[in-house]
């Protein structure tokens, strides 16, 4: 393992920590967090607050025949016990999912997965609420569960969704993209084709803070205040209005400090609705916080794609076509949180970073007796699955052709002059320099030396693997014409107000789960308007105090909301320019902007600062004819396209020949996310994503037994990388700005989670080359790698 001591320490103090704009800047958030003074949902303590706990199904598939709550209701500290039947009377037993399916808030007819919500208790304290759950008695009439996705669509399989009238199977949806006929024609004539079955198993985002809420319904004003662990407070407010029938202006959703999201906190969960109902029923504020098992077994999982990849090429290594067929596991309800027209998310970018002739993909989704979800865990709407598919297939082809995997990629990259590039599945990649990023990664890795070292080690019987991946993401959903969630367009608002003394407040529609928005948005505004970031307050995560927008997920904050911030600042600057022209008694055309002040052209000594202008805007002096006082603006930004960050990753692993344990020795990540706002924060985002990648590739897995019992429902069984499993990350970057984004930024939050798993698996397979291994499915645990070494590799499910 390369250690930090081998690497020159970064310059930590004498750097640009006071930028008026972009650059390394320490975070404005940190002083409260290092003092333990953050306010997370579970930290809230309102007067008279009660505590809610949820009774969950112990089985995967059963009809509920009877629920007896009398003993629970008799508990001296219990204030309310609510079942599905109670909710049904209020029309709240079912709710709409983000994918426009429905999901049970509390089960009425039957339970459809282990951990499903059956009833809830509201009590004076958390311990008593939990005690009372044990006093609820539920009779279950067991049904055969649908667990194996491969047989879920077989005729005669038990029907998970039999509440849907006429539903006689478990079919969820079919979706396809690309040109099937053209792709078949290319495959038919190709010199070389390779087929590989790949499983991207079910994993879970498992943020350190579980999901929860405090609901406070004021029966006098009729206003609901909802503090919740949500990545999308505005979308949640609108959906609560639709689901619960509370007028939208009477709902305030506050997302306080959120302890990580990674997609897990995008959906509306039954627990949130239960907390609302609990507050309405009791007339008191009600807190609900999941425990870890509840989080792992019932909230949004990720991936769960069984894929067949096919790649066609010429014998000299020109990739001609890529085809994939996917079987997707929805769980019991389609809780996919992706733009509605994209039921398989953005899996359509599975053609990757390569200039090819044809592509086609067909996805079939099925319901099973497992928890719902599907799009979560920093996947950029299924791009993690797409990148894994194409990057494993390119490596399989390289092996087949006996070409170095770097050489094969270089040969087939979309070239810088081809941008904007329209893929065979219709995505318009905005900008890129793929060879540039790859060359930077090769340089840092010392790729040729690594290959030479590998030869020596193989001769000694050591198992060293070098894995390469190259990804292109599509982030920043998205253009209103194509993208919406339940009819809500994916545009984002922003409001900027400059106070009389030249300090500012910017109100953004997205919120932060650790991304550092309070810092980076201040920097975006600072860059545009010349006010120090320290003098700019960023307000987020409160629907009463911020403009509408769809929230923080899919790496969309900087591409969408970040653009809105830059543009609203320019709008304010335009007004400031008019005021400045009056103050300096020159025409607007005679002014030029240098960050922080307008100067008279040809007379740079004559100028007014943005602070001077702000005071004039609110002051008693004259303003130019027809101009309103004040210095503020608001906008709503509708992106014209997604942005397409990319990167080149190289992973070096060593596998113990005796135990088959995989150790990641080095990991080199070169990311290009366009214009960089804060290098420190970007590096942190990449480090976190790479760690996710090690977890996903080597240890994280949500599995089920044949009865549908979740086998990984605690952090003893769902393994997350610790400091001992990750190397010192080696990161670098190139900068290829987005041509259509106002500041050229592209988004980076999920790049590393998307790009790293195939690099690691490619490295594992490369290490096992002496054994003739062509593929190992994730997670590459010692037992699974050992089986591959013995020629018995098998899929994880």
């Amino acid at each position: 393992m390369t250690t930090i001591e081998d690497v020159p320490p970064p310059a930590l103090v004498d750097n640009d920590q006071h930028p008026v704009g972009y650059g390394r800047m320490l975070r404005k958030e940190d002083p409260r967090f290092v003092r333990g003074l953050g306010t997370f949902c579970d930290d809230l303590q309102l007067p008279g607050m009660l505590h809610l706990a949820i009774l969950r199904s112990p089985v995967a598939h059963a009809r509920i025949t009877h629920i007896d709550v009398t003993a629970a209701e008799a508990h001296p500290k219990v204030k309310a016990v609510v079942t599905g039947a109670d909710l049904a009377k209020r029309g709240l037993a079912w709710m709409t999912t983000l994918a426009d399916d429905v999901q049970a808030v509390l089960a009425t007819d039957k339970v459809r997965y282990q951990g499903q919500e059956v009833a809830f208790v509201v009590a004076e304290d958390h311990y008593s609420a939990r005690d009372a759950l044990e006093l609820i008695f539920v009779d279950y009439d067991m049904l055969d569960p649908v667990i194996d996705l491969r047989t879920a669509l077989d005729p005669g399989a038990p029907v998970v969704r039999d509440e849907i009238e006429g539903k006689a199977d478990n079919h969820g949806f079919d979706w396809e993209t690309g040109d099937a006929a053209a792709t078949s024609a290319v495959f038919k004539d190709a010199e070389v084709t390779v087929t590989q079955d790949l499983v991207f198993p079910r994993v879970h985002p498992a943020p350190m803070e579980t999901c929860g809420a405090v609901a406070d319904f004021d029966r006098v004003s009729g206003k609901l205040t909802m503090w919740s662990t949500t990545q999308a407070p505005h979308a949640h407010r609108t959906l609560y209005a639709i689901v619960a029938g509370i007028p939208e202006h009477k709902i305030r959703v506050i997302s306080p400090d959120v302890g990580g999201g990674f997609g897990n906190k995008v959906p509306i969960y039954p627990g949130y609705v239960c907390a609302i109902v609990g507050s309405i029923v009791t007339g008191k504020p009600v807190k609900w916080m999941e425990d870890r098992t509840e989080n792992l077994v019932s909230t949004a999982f990720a991936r769960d794609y069984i894929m067949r990849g096919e790649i066609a090429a010429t014998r000299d290594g020109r990739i001609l076509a890529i085809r994939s067929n996917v079987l997707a596991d929805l769980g019991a309800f389609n809780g996919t949180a992706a733009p509605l027209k994209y039921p398989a998310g953005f899996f359509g970018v599975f053609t990757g970073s390569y200039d090819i002739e044809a592509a086609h993909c067909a996805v079939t989704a099925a319901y099973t007796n497992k928890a719902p979800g599907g799009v979560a865990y920093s996947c950029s709407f299924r791009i993690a699955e797409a990148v894994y598919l194409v990057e494993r297939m390119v490596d399989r082809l390289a092996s087949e052709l006996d070409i170095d995997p770097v050489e094969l990629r270089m040969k087939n990259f979309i070239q810088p002059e081809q941008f904007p590039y329209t893929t065979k599945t219709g995505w318009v990649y905005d900008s890129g320099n793929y060879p540039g990023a790859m060359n930077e990664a090769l340089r840092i890795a010392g790729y040729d030396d690594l290959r030479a070292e590998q030869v020596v080690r193989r001769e000694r019987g050591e198992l060293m693997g070098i894995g390469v991946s190259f990804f292109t993401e599509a982030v920043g959903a998205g253009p209103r014409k194509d993208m919406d969630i339940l009819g809500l367009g994916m545009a984002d608002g922003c409001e900027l107000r400059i106070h009389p003394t030249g300090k500012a407040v910017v109100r953004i529609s997205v919120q932060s789960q650790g991304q550092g928005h309070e810092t980076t948005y201040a920097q975006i505004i600072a860059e545009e308007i010349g006010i120090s970031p320290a003098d700019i307050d960023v307000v987020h995560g409160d629907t009463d105090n911020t403009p509408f927008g769809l929230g923080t997920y899919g790496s969309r904050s900087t591409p969408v909301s970040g653009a809105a911030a830059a543009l609203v600042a320019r709008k304010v600057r335009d007004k400031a320019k008019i005021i400045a022209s009056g103050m300096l008694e020159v025409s607007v055309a005679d002014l030029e902007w240098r960050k922080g002040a307008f100067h008279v052209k040809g007379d740079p000594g004559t100028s007014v600062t943005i602070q001077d202008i702000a005071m004039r805007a609110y002051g008693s002096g004259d303003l130019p004819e027809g101009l309103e006082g004040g210095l503020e603006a608001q906008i709503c930004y509708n992106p014209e396209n997604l942005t397409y960050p990319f990167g080149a990753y190289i992973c070096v692993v060593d596998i113990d020949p005796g135990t088959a344990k995989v150790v990641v020795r080095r990991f080199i990540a070169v990311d290009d996310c366009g214009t960089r706002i804060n290098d420190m924060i970007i590096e942190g985002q990449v480090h976190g994503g790479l760690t996710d990648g090690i977890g996903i590739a080597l240890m994280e897995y949500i599995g089920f037994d044949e009865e549908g019992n979740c086998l990984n429902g605690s952090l003893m069984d769902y393994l997350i990388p610790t400091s001992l499993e990750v190397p010192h990350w080696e990161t670098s970057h190139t900068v290829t700005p987005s041509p259509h984004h106002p500041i050229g930024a592209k988004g980076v939050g999920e790049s590393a989670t998307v790009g790293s798993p195939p690099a690691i698996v490619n490295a594992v397979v490369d290490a096992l080359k002496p054994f003739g291994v062509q593929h190992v499915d994730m997670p590459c645990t010692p037992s699974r790698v050992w089986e591959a070494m013995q020629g018995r590799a098998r899929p994880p499910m």
Partner: protein
Amino acid sequence: MQVSMTVNDEVVTETVEGRMLLVHFLRDRLRLTGTHWGCDTSNCGTCVVQLDGEPVKSCTVLAAMASGHSVRTVEGLEVDHLLDPVQQGFIECHGLQCGFCTPGMLMTARALLDRDPDPSEATIREAISGQICRCTGYTSIIRSIQWAAAHAHEHPTSDEPTDATS
């Protein structure tokens, strides 16, 4: 039952249920919510506090077991409005993102540096290996603790880290 302990240099006495965990005692009774709770199985380490100077997971300690002992939480790191070097280090080196694991990491880091003022990277990795961070990938946490080790005898001159708030 009645428990009495010293928390951040103050003696507290409360009546609690015998089953009450120290983490809930600190959070719900004393309103010291800097100590977090993140799992059911003592795996995540967001609840780490110091018990008589040793880092412990406060979800595996009953409040009753802490009676008669000294507890220090993240709220007790700052002294006379001066941040502890580990707190400053986490700010300087981007040792946190969402901030949820941070208090536990800080308490472990402080205990580590108290017994080993100049730990190697391997020692730091070992020390924090019982705690999970989902955001940082650990490298910046390690840098933060190294920063604290290197600045052990320096005191910040002001309450706030000037870089972030001035």
